């Protein structure tokens, strides 16, 4: 199969020998030239969604302008092109995660849908009353609620691994919770509310020691750290396109082929079947068995372009740059009087949650917004985490590799303005 040429993705490839050039990277993101309330946009809400490089925008435009057709069925030229581009994106995702084969990559709408798919299609048929599903105390709602639903359906019980005051998983408690009734472990790789990187390798190892399969929620990890699903040996891995500099509405579920093959379809419809009669329907092979209906073709191809862009820079370099920026931000923001950082794990990524003494997070957000600074305020869809720290809401600045030290300085200046307003 010849790959459809998407040559733009290649032009951004940076020589690993050349130091990471943030100013050059910023040129690739047109939205960073926008202004908010008359001020230069300082976008620090990357954990909610990331901005899109020009190559992704161009890929989407080109797809709709020159390649649009339905896939996997057309006999015509365009359909063939669209199918090749879409399947090319699947192969790119497989390489990105170091999956053994592209058929282990299921395109879904989002991380949320990926978790729901595994909960309903893998776990539900296997869970008996009294069985246990283990999650952590720092999961996003999307890795809590699907398991609560499946527990309600089956009589299984949800067990929650606690976190310590720094926001780190208490590994001994996890070990203790893994018991004879544990049937599944679903764990976050990087916490969206705290930035904590969980010890995923150890988590998988311990679960596998008891024959328990593991799903990792990689929504925040995949855009920030190199991920190798074969080295981790996780059974399922999920992430979203839009947090990884790709389009919204497209997500990825990685699953080990034998597991995916043994699972019943999640939804019924076109594309997921081999033949249909009113007596019997034969399901398609993986991954198509899980992709009922016309998928988000443009989204898949756009995600492929985003991944091409990210690997062009290199996830190691991205992680290293963000790590340096986080250290700077932690020091600068932490030095503002009245600031309490929430989430101080030793191993963390560029997510900075904090509260300002005497000021509600929402007021912090409004004042920073007037300065052109976009942060997230509230519970970050992780209410149990905030309950753990006894705060109703936090302000969260989440970094990307296109953020700069000057932007952190702007954030700090904004925080001083917050304190002045509420002095």
């Amino acid at each position, binding site marked *: 199969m010849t790959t459809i040429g998407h040559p733009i993705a290649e032009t951004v490839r940076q020589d690993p020998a050349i130091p990471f050039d943030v100013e050059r990277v910023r040129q690739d993101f047109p939205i960073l030239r926008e202004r908010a309330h008359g001020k230069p946009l300082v976008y620090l809400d990357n954990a909610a969604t990331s901005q899109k490089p020009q190559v992704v925008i161009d890929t989407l435009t080109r797809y709709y302008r020159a390649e649009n057709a339905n896939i996997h069925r057309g006999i015509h030229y365009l359909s063939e092109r669209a199918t090749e581009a879409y399947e090319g994106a699947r192969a790119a995702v497989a390489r990105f995660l170091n999956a053994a084969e592209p058929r282990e990559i299921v395109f879904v709408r989002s991380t949320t849908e990926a978790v729901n798919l595994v909960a309903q299609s893998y776990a539900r048929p296997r869970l008996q009353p009294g069985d246990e599903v283990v999650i952590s105390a720092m999961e996003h709602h999307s890795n809590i609620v699907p398991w609560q639903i499946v527990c309600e359906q089956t009589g299984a019980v949800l067990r929650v691994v606690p976190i310590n005051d720094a926001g780190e998983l208490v590994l001994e408690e996890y070990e203790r919770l893994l018991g004879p009734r544990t049937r599944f472990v679903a764990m976050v790789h990087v916490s969206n509310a705290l930035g904590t990187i969980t010890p995923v390798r150890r988590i998988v190892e311990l679960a596998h020691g008891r024959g328990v399969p593991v799903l990792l929620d990689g929504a925040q990890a995949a855009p920030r750290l190199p991920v190798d699903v074969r080295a981790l040996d996780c059974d399922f891995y999920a992430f979203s396109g839009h947090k990884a500099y790709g389009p919204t509405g497209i997500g990825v579920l990685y699953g080990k082929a034998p597991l995916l093959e043994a699972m019943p379809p999640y939804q019924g419809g076109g594309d997921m079947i081999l033949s249909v009669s009113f007596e019997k329907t034969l399901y398609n092979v993986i991954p198509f068995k899980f992709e009922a209906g016309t998928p988000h073709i443009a989204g898949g191809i756009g995600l492929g372009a985003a991944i091409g862009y990210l690997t062009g820079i290199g996830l190691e370099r991205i992680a290293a740059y963000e790590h340096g920026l986080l250290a700077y931000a932690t020091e600068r923001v932490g030095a503002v009087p009245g600031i309490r950082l929430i989430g101080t794990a030793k191993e963390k990524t560029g997510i900075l949650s904090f509260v300002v003494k005497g000021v*509600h997070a*929402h007021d912090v957000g409004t004042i920073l917004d*007037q300065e052109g600074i976009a942060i997230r305020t509230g519970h970050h869809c992780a209410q149990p985490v905030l309950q753990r720290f006894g705060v*109703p*809401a936090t302000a969260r600045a989440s970094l990307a590799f296109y953020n700069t030290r000057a932007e952190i300085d702007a954030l700090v200046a904004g925080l001083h303005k917050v304190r002045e307003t*509420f002095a």
Partner: protein
Amino acid sequence: MSDLRELYQQVILDHNKNPRNFRRLEGANRTAEGHNPLCGDQITLYVQIQDDVIGDIGFQGSGCAISRAAASLMTSSVKGKTRAEAEDLFHAFHKMVTTEREAAGDPRALGKLAAFSGVREFPIRVKCATLPWHTLRAALEGKGQKVSTE
């Protein structure tokens, strides 16, 4: 910056810092809970109503400066008012924070509540300002159910 100063007026900052009627009312015969899921604002309202008049009123909860000040000023302004008068104030307040400056009329007619006129420039904060008022309505209607801004 002027928008911001209009949002966080001195009256609002004062009522945020020192909220009035910030207490649980033992003799309350009406209560209601309000919740703004977007930012986690949460308010419990206690109302003592007799012969259609709001005799006493108190609130508890946590929230942003706007919602806290709004609850403080709302409770201060409806105390001693009849149910109908409170309803009128609700409508006038709602109109002030949701409609264009020209159409909203003279905010001074609302007394201290006029401090919230700047909220209209911040559409996502309107819910913070109106949450206590919606909760008041729920309490007066005696439905006893949780109101939500969503």
